[in-house]
């Protein structure tokens, strides 16, 4: 291949990869910032800590607006609010407002009229104290605020409940799906019986039914059973095999030579034992694929929990994340929202790197064997 062609392939791949990574990077960087650094219109890439001399010592501060010169900063006596006054309109002990009596004030700073040294309004993190300092005395360094993660967990209120519910659903769905789908796939592939292929056709046909069609009657059914508001509607179904996984496992089971089962039968091995002790161990890679995708499906599911979980304390992580966004009064706390999103995404990404091969094989299988 020519060098230019090769170079342009790399160029496109690297540029594309950067675009695909950027949302992750921006999420994590936002999660590590203090709130005010997410609300500024000109963003800093990296989270920073600003420091300036305030009330006699160097403190962490929030830089505010630039201050025009010349001006005088004064504080009303007794109140914490500073007032900025144009120079010339001031006596040292009192200021005459447009209406009313003169107010006793204390001059904090006179900012000289000099274009060479810009000043900046600053305040401490609690917003109790405000001041102006020369721009040059505000320093910053990169500090990642890892404490945003525990704070975000706290802001989600029932995080540990959400995590527990999500894990319970993941585990039950994985167990149910793997066991039932494997047994059903065995019946449809390793055994010869009348009506088998017709029933399998029916099973394939059920894959064509879009979920909204069964959504309302299923809700009615679970409501009749008194299961709405519990986790049951979200896992019980998995113990009754899902068509897609049966299809996937059947493809695998068919690749195992028939002689293996025949030999076991001649030795007097029962059908369940052949299934459990011979076929299942041989199909571990396929079972891992099914388990992985079931886990992901349960972890990522949104519509199911949205329909069936009614009390905020019973939510799953996906639903809790959504609730965190909508329950905000006023401004969204983007740094916490991104920290919580990171926490929800992290296990999925970890799982991918642990089981990368199974993932890729599984996806490829769904596309090429179908």
């Amino acid at each position, binding site marked *: 291949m020519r060098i230019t062609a090769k170079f342009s392939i790399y160029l496109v791949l690297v540029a594309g990869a950067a675009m695909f990574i950027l949302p992750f990077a921006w999420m994590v960087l936002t999660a590590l910032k203090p709130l005010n650094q997410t609300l500024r219109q000109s*963003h800093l890439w990296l989270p920073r800590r600003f420091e300036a001399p305030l009330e006699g010592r160097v403190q962490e501060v929030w830089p505010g607006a630039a201050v025009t010169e010349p001006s005088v900063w004064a504080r009303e006596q007794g109140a914490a609010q500073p007032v900025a006054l144009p120079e010339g309109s001031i006596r040292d002990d009192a200021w005459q407002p447009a209406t009313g009596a003169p107010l006793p004030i204390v001059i904090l700073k006179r900012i000289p009229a000099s274009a060479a040294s810009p000043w900046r309004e600053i305040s401490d993190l609690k917003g109790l104290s405000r001041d102006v300092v020369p721009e040059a005395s505000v320093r910053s360094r990169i500090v990642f605020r890892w404490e945003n993660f525990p704070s975000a967990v706290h802001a989600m209120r029932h995080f540990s409940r959400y995590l527990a519910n999500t894990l319970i659903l993941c585990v039950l769905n994985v167990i149910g799906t793997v066991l039932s789908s494997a047994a059903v796939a065995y019946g449809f592939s390793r055994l010869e*019986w009348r009506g088998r292929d017709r029933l399998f056709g029916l*099973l394939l046909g059920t894959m064509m039914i879009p*979920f909204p069609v*069964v959504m309302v009657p299923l809700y009615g059914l679970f409501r009749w059973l008194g299961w709405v508001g519990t986790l049951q509607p979200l896992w019980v179904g998995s113990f009754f095999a899902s068509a897609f996984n049966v299809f996937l496992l059947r493809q695998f089971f068919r690749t195992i030579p028939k002689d293996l089962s025949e030999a076991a039968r001649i030795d007097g091995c029962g059908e369940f034992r052949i299934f459990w002790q011979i076929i299942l161990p041989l199909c571990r890679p396929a079972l891992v694929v099914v388990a992985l995708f079931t886990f992901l499906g349960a972890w990522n599911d949104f*519509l199911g929990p949205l329909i069936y979980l009614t009390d905020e304390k019973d939510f799953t992580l996906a639903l809790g994340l959504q609730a965190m966004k909508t329950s905000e009064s006023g401004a969204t706390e983007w740094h916490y929202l991104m920290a919580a999103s990171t926490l929800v995404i992290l296990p999925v990404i970890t799982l991918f790197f642990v089981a990368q091969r199974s993932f890729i094989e599984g996806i490829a299988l769904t596309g*090429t064997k179908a």
Partner: protein
Amino acid sequence: MTSGDRKRTWIGLAFVSPWLIGFAAFTLYPVCASIYFSFCDYDVLSPPVWVGTLNYQDMVTDSVFWQSVWNTLLFNLMALPVGLVSALALALLLNQPVRLRGIFRAIYYLPSLVPAVASAMVWLWILNGRLGLLNQALVAIGISHPPQWLGDPAWAKPSLALVSLWGCGNTVVIYLAALQGVPRSLLEAAMIDGASAWKRLLNVTLPAISPVIYFNLLIGIIGGLQVFTTAFVMGGAERSTLFYAIYIYQNAFEYRHMGYASAMAWILCLMILALTWMASRLSRSRVHYQGD
């Protein structure tokens, strides 16, 4: 039927019994009930009342229904072709003998694993009109009034298409698997005959993977008509991302018009059938199955 036959049938049925029970309870009953409910006034709390075809008639005059149909079709017209072509292009690049292929593949695949709610949050932040990364970048390169994305009815659907493009890794991996199955002998023969890379792509590679392109198209249509979570969480301005599945959900669980929701679900079923039928008609002469 011999006794051996009968025994084998019982054993077979025993193994598939989980599915048989599940099919009866979670598919057959709901499908039948759904047909019935679609002709009823039903709010779950009280028994359904037969109203004939009223739900279906209501749809014709319900402007929000038509808006949701239009929104869904328009969104798919943007997202589906762009997604399929981009995924194919990425797969073709990743199929070249490049270094670090595994890492590239992982990077492109990862976003498709991200829970839809979490990806919606991240993109809400990036696409935020005032504070979002994208608009800050646009301002920085001199576009003083960038679009408000989800806040602008005209840009909300392209915004969601962008989010779905981020998750195209799934499709990339399926294409990659197919590309690895393209017979080497055919490509080499074409090369010996002096076919350019472009000609080899058009005349060898694409026909060879056409069944997989068709598969991805069908999955895209079926999934695309049912998109829910991302749009539900991100919520574009002025009903611009009120998609069909969201309107079904709202009717069922917010307005308690379960009968109307069921009727809409059946219309969705018909739309999927019609579109897949169209896709199969269009692709009949263009999809080649090896060995058939």
